[in-house]
């Protein structure tokens, strides 16, 4: 069973639907203690980094312990950003710090006519092979909607470019995350979720 962590950051319906479509059983744990029996943990997220305040110390401890015991973790969107040390979006809120770096917003030259948030389909490049992105061809497009992004680090498994390169996917051991929404990225998204489930 996959634990889908609901910390009040919006809409989980489409994540549930996509996981059901690829045959995963999912539940939403009501207490952090339940994570000990999860076969995998998903930290979803839409909206603001500040919403990760809903991931209280109890949740953070339980997630960290599960990861240490080898349980696969997948962060989605703000769920990816939360695995880093923090974000310019909410300087007072600490990320989990499993990955090094701080999330930043997009910067464009004046009059570049580039919109923020970054909304829509954008293409991926893969700096190295990974389990998560297996079978995903360079140039594959996935659906993004976000105003902040994580830096490219050694653990980056996919890069996207919007006013500069950022981490579209990361993978380090059993810790994985995607900035895009695999549940809204058509066949490519379902393939990436399937890769994670199979890992």
């Amino acid at each position, binding site marked *: 069973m996959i634990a889908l962590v609901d910390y009040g950051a919006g809409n989980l*319906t*489409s994540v549930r639907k*996509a996981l059901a479509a690829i045959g995963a059983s999912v539940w939403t744990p009501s207490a952090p203690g339940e994570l000990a029996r999860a076969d995998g943990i998903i930290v979803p997220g839409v909206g603001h980094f500040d919403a990760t305040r809903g991931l209280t110390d109890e949740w953070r401890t339980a997630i960290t312990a599960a990861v240490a015991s080898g349980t696969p973790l997948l962060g989605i969107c703000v769920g990816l950003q939360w695995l880093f040390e923090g974000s310019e979006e909410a300087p007072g809120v600490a990320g989990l710090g499993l990955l090094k770096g701080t999330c930043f917003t997009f910067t464009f030259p004046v009059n570049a*006519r580039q919109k923020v*948030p970054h909304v829509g389909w*954008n293409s991926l490049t893969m700096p190295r092979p990974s389990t998560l992105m297996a079978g995903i061809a360079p140039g594959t*497009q996935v659906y993004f909607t*976000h105003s902040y992004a994580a830096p490219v680090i050694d653990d980056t498994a996919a890069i996207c470019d919007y006013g500069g390169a950022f981490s579209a996917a990361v993978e380090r051991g059993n810790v994985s995350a995607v900035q895009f929404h695999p549940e809204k990225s058509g066949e490519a998204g379902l393939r990436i979720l399937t890769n994670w489930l199979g890992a």
Partner: protein
Amino acid sequence: MLSKRIIACLDVRDGKVVKGVNFEGLRDAGDPAALARRYNVEGIDEVVILDVTATVEARQARAHTIAAVAREIFLPLAVGGGIHSEADAAAAIEAGADKVSLNTAALRQPELITRLAKRYGSQAVIVAIDAKRGATVAAPHKGGPYEQGPYERGPYNVFARSGQAATPRDAVEWAREATDRGAGEILLTSIDRDGTKSGFDCAMTAAVSDAVNIPVIASGGAGTFEHFAEVFREGHADAALAASIFHFNEKSVSELKAFLSKSGIPVRI
């Protein structure tokens, strides 16, 4: 590079897809789930369900349609029409919508934009603007919130209630305010062009798109592939929405994208 999005609009009434010309004379275009399935195969980037005659009693029927469409696609799904309250928005999102589109409700109570943005994030809140060029507004909707008219001719007059009720708003000014209040995208429909297949209103789209920092979806008037290229190039649109051009098998989404790609416009193939 970020792709320009092609969005299919399903105008739904009583669970069926309908589409009219200038918002009137609706004709039947079929089953929403079946259409969504076809568009998904053809490579549509996003789907919008607009419940054109939604009422409070229709909320449950609408949820059924949303769920049926959501089952068919793993793409962003927006829902508009009849979203008048936080409860309406919650019901649509619970049924499988990723975004809700506010139109008349946002004009009546702009604070609803902010409330929904706080609850679901700005990415979940589209403000839909129906506008008409230089409209002479003689008879505002009786009993509506704007009965103090008539209003002066503006460059782009905003209308509420599916184009039936004049408002004192200008599209550019209203798009700016909606953005400030927390909207994540603007869906801009030209009432003049809607259903006419004479092309998008590129000047109006550019005026709005250049005035805000959030994505603008152009709507109303798609008739040829060239119209889409124009609204991306000259209208500075981030996405383009169409209904009838796709529904009646006149043009396929995949052919449109191949055309745009050849024209140098970034799209998802």
